[in-house]
């Protein structure tokens, strides 16, 4: 029984990280209608930026994280201006392909800059495991879960209750109508990419602290993709739930199925869940149902 509950709880905490990455997919999609396949690479670059700041400057860690978030937001704005904006209005295929090409370019660039060897990421939240009765957790995942849940609720509030958020949601509905209503699509897109850049630093530090960082860290993006799809691409709060669902399933797969399948069941689990849900409910669990007309 203890084992079972421990499996569920560690799944929930891992799901928090997935939700953190998935929500940055959703923030971009909700305000630009672009699904950024290279989000994992942005998380990796966010991680490398914070590693560079934390390991090479004497700043206190919380200030270092803020600096890294600002830098990463800058990277987001740069990518949006250079790569995404010229393609607005092009067919969907071009937008999908450009973010996939970004995967290649950003991976190559980060190996050129930071090298291919994994580095140790400083443990920001301490290294001693937290104990609650018979259960124990990694501190970074625990605090990360708290930070990410708070952040997701803040984002949900922002998108539903502030002028900025509502204008961004209007853009997700239809670019042309939003412009006709006097909303600056360009500005909102820059804001969304900056937010996604800053968010991915948070996801990166909670996931990586105390582990090693290398260019393979970008694979978190591929694992969080199914979460974003599962949530439906427009739902902020859905990301948290989808992250937790995927996290729990994955942790059960690690605990109970990996022995039977020589490991690796946990890696395909998110994709299997996604395939099943998408076959039953093509817009994801909480996505907007769009009506297509001729």
């Amino acid at each position, binding site marked *: 029984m203890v084992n079972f509950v421990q499996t569920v709880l560690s799944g929930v905490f891992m799901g928090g990280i997935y939700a953190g990455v998935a929500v940055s997919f959703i923030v971009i999609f909700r305000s630009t209608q672009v699904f950024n396949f290279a989000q994992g690479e942005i998380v990796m670059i966010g991680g490398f930026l914070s590693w560079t700041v934390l390991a090479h400057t004497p700043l206190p860690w919380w200030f270092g994280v803020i600096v890294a978030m600002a830098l990463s937001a800058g990277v987001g704005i740069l990518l949006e201006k250079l790569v995404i904006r010229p393609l607005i209005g092009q067919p969907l295929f071009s937008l999908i392909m450009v973010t996939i090409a970004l995967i290649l370019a950003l991976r*190559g660039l980060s190996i050129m800059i930071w090298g291919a060897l994994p580095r140790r990421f400083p443990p920001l939240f301490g290294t001693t495991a937290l104990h609650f009765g018979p259960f124990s957790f990694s501190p970074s995942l625990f605090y990360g879960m708290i930070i990410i849940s708070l952040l997701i609720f803040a984002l949900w509030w922002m998108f539903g209750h502030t002028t900025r958020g509502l204008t961004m949601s209007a853009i997700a509905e239809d670019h042309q109508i939003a412009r006709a209503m006097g909303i600056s699509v360009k500005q909102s897109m820059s804001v969304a990419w900056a937010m996604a850049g800053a968010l991915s630093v948070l996801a990166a530090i909670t996931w990586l602290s105390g582990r090693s960082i290398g260019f393979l860290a970008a694979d978190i993006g591929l694992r969080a993709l199914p979460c974003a799809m599962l949530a439906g691409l427009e739902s902020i709060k859905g990301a948290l739930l989808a992250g937790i669902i995927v996290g729990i399933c994955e942790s059960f797969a690690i605990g109970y199925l990996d022995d039977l399948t020589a490991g*690796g069941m946990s890696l395909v689990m998110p994709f299997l869940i996604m*395939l099943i849900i998408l076959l039953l409910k093509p817009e994801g669990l909480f996505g907007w149902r769009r009506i297509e007309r001729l």
Partner: protein
Amino acid sequence: MLPSGVFSENYEQDKAILRTRLRWSWFFILLLLLALGPLIIPEAYLGALCLMSIFLIAVLGLQILVGYCGQINLGQSSFMGVGGIIGCWAAMKFNLSIEPTLIIGGLASAVYGLIFALPAIRLKGYYLALTTLAAQFIFHFVFTRVPSDFFFGTYGGFPVKSLSLLTGTTLNSPNSIYYLIICVTVIFTFFAFNISRSRLGRAFMAVRDNDIAAEVMGINVIVYKFLAFVICAFFAGVAGVLWGFYMRYVNVEQFTLWQSIWMLGMIIVGGVGSILGAVLGVIFIRLIQETVNVLGPTLVAAFPAQYGISVIFAGMSLIIGLIVIIFLIYEPRGLAHRWRLIYRSYHLWPFPY
């Protein structure tokens, strides 16, 4: 476009692919050059040509699915892998000849493709891209967990021994493999050309441009989407089997996600929705990859030692990623469009149009 003075007097002439004597002669010169390949090309470059042809077959399939039918496929190299591994496995196990092996590989891959075409009935765009990405991961998962006694004592792959044609000739020299690959490529290019000109290709294009409108016009969208996936996967499967013959070894690790992305890059660089584009894109991207591979040691030496050979992968990714981005932004119609512009201005010279 046709030069002036060429008229069609009956429907047969109107339907022909090559309509002037000049084009027929160019066609025969190309065939002759390919046939003389081993005599005039050094052996090192012959290998590059073989790989180009293998990729061309897979990319032609992808062009039919992505360029003509408008469905996105991020798992083409896994389709290639399924065809290659299952085809070569059957050949080793039952001592088959080359022709049935190619067909078995193609069919195995088509069945695998059909599984991932199921979501395409209901999904579009981003969602479909994600499910085909799953094809890549599931391929890797399944084939690395096949018991080793099934794969003749190794995990994830096995060596492929020389096979013989139905006529009984065994192909074991590099040159004979070259001729096999070139023949299959010519046949598949011919098929791809004609698919795009036939009712099938026009139905695919209708589905691509607007699937609801296509349905209203009486095209069974689901059947045609399935067909596009099956054709795409069949091409990939045949390419996979040829890959096995050429490499003399098939392994799961050879069919990576990166390869799938490179193949999509070839389509974009060449031109989406054009068979000529697929050919030009494959040549362009493969040339870049070969150049990076040749320059590899210099590149490794130019970087500090701790970078090691990962610089080659990094450089290749960076260059191909940037090229694809630049093409998407500045020339979304690809090299095929450029080629048509050059051809047209050459024909009309000295008049602008």
